């Protein structure tokens, strides 16, 4: 039996290094390499061998190469490590070829929000560290020959939080889908709304829903893929609004975080609570998909919608 990992999902939203960000499988060298890449495959072959990662579920130690070749899934217990948009795009798109869209949109500190750090400083620091401009990237390409637009979250950017930039990229991605008659796939991995954008982040729930309404009127499919973890404003908006809602195995998915629920009801949560399998049992997912089958399944679904 798998042991339950305790996790405080909200803490990732601070944008600080947290104990749970160590679940992130990408070691530091990775970011340095990514800064220089043009064709990602060539460089990745030069990944230093001998580096290893420990599986947070079963403590199995994999080498970095082994993990990457296994799509960052633990070979022993099938634990799906947290990966970013770069890895998902490589997994889904044929020959790892895709075009990144709307990459020129960047967050800014409109409210001059300061908690323990100023928001603009936080944005700049995270950009310097990860080379990401925000918590979502949009790619267009083909999976098994089927054209699709994939919007994918990056958890390492303030816990994949939903702010104005994610809302705007989502909106433009939908417009692109409508203009090019393409299906829309969103891969969620987020602690929820971005507090540093206050009510503006809340309004993104309606903004993205409005765009999904237009996508729906255009009769184009929207597939929501939920990965570990997906919470708050994402599950209370487009995360749960897919024509199909699917999830990776064992992903923690919910509205309120486990810590908050525990404090509210003042008792322990049952084993498996808010995991993908729990959501499937309660009727909120169409199915669960292993990462290694994701590309084939997406292509199959797109074909079924199209033909």
């Amino acid at each position: 039996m798998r042991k339950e990992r305790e996790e405080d999902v909200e803490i990732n939203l601070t944008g600080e290094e947290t104990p749970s960000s160590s679940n992130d499988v990408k070691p530091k060298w990775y970011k340095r390499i990514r800064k220089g890449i043009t064709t990602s495959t060539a460089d990745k072959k030069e990944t230093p061998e001998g580096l290893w990662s420990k599986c947070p579920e079963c403590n199995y130690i994999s080498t970095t190469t082994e993990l990457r070749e296994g799509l960052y899934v633990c070979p022993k217990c099938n634990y799906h490590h947290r990966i970013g948009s770069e890895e998902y795009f490589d997994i889904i798109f044929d020959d790892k070829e895709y075009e990144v869209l709307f990459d020129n949109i960047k967050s800014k500190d409109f409210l001059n929000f300061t908690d323990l750090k100023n928001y603009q400083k936080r944005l700049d620091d995270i950009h310097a560290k990860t080379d990401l401009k925000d918590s979502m990237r949009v790619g267009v390409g083909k999976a098994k020959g089927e054209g699709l637009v994939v919007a994918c979250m990056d958890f390492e950017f303030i816990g994949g939080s939903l702010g104005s930039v994610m809302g705007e990229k989502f909106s433009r991605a939908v417009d692109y889908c409508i203009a090019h008659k393409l299906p829309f796939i969103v891969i969620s991995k987020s602690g929820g709304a971005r507090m540093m954008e206050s009510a503006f982040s809340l309004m993104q729930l309606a903004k993205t829903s409005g765009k999904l309404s237009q996508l729906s009127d255009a009769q184009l499919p929207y597939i929501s893929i939920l990965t570990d973890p997906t919470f708050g404003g994402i599950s209370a908006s487009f995360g749960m609004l897919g024509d199909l809602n699917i999830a990776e195995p064992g992903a923690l998915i919910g509205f309120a975080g486990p810590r908050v629920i525990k404090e509210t009801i003042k008792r322990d949560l049952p084993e498996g609570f808010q995991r993908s399998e729990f959501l499937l049992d309660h009727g909120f997912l169409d199915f669960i998909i292993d990462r290694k089958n994701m590309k084939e399944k997406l292509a199959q679904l797109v074909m079924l919608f199209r033909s």
Partner: protein
Amino acid sequence: MPQYPNRQFLDFEQPIKTLYEEREKLKQSAEKSKIDLTDGINKIEEAIIGQRRDITEHLTPWQRVQLSRHPDRPYTLKYISKIFTNFVELYGDRNVKDDKAMVGGFAQLDGETIMVIGQQKGINTKTRQLRNFGMANPEGYRKALRLMRLAEKFNKPVITFVDTPGAYPGLEAEERGQGEAIARNIYEMIRLKVPIIIVIIGEGASGGAFGIGVGDKTLMMENTWYTVISPESCSSILWRTWEKKEIAAEQLRLTATDMKGFGLVDEIVPEPLGGAHWDYDEAAEKLKVSIKNALAEIKIAEPNKRVSNRIEKYGNMGFWDEIVEEEVENIQ
């Protein structure tokens, strides 16, 4: 509204409490001694109004949050009873149960049938528990959606009253899809063909509020707050202590003035001096005027135009920088 001695006072309302007590003493001695002390009592009444004015003029964001939660503040059913006639309350989500934290039904606004919906808080220990402190479960959001669809079928406008510390973070709420319920409402409210007016009458806490909070016009009462997280939770997550709630309230820019300034709400509804709890009739009368004006404005549009306006309105909310990169220019 509750009269002295049942009136409750916030920390910054203490000077008024002192005046109340003085007035009470004077009244009692006037009765006992049969001496006319009207002048003295009137002076205290004036001082109370002066204090109410003073409070109104110097409210901090955190104090507005406190006022929005004032135990004597009018709640949804109070406004419904004072603004509308012929209210028929409707219960249940037709699926699991009736959620007492969410109320709704048909009512008339000066003769016009409206669907009114809102979160409801309790007024004493027993009803607070019954109403779950205004925190709805998924059934509450699904009940609200059922009523909105009913309104759409019979072409009646929808008015929602938002007053919640958040959607209920419970085990069963998760089992029954709290996220999905709120998401569905937001999506359906964007598409609803009839006019929708949202009124923030108290606490506008995040997704729990937004689950009945998408519409053509959003009105925000003067002493309310509306944002993505409560100042306490924001403090605990971002400052890692519960002690920074006042600073969090400032940083979040959650007041009606801020929200109107950002264009995220359409109108601020004035309240009686010192807050809505000072005079329910006056508060309701002012709100009724704003609701009627807003409704008249949005009823003009064709249903499809209203929906596309709504999508456009929310589509324009947000801030970002667009970088013009050299590579981009070179390609073009």
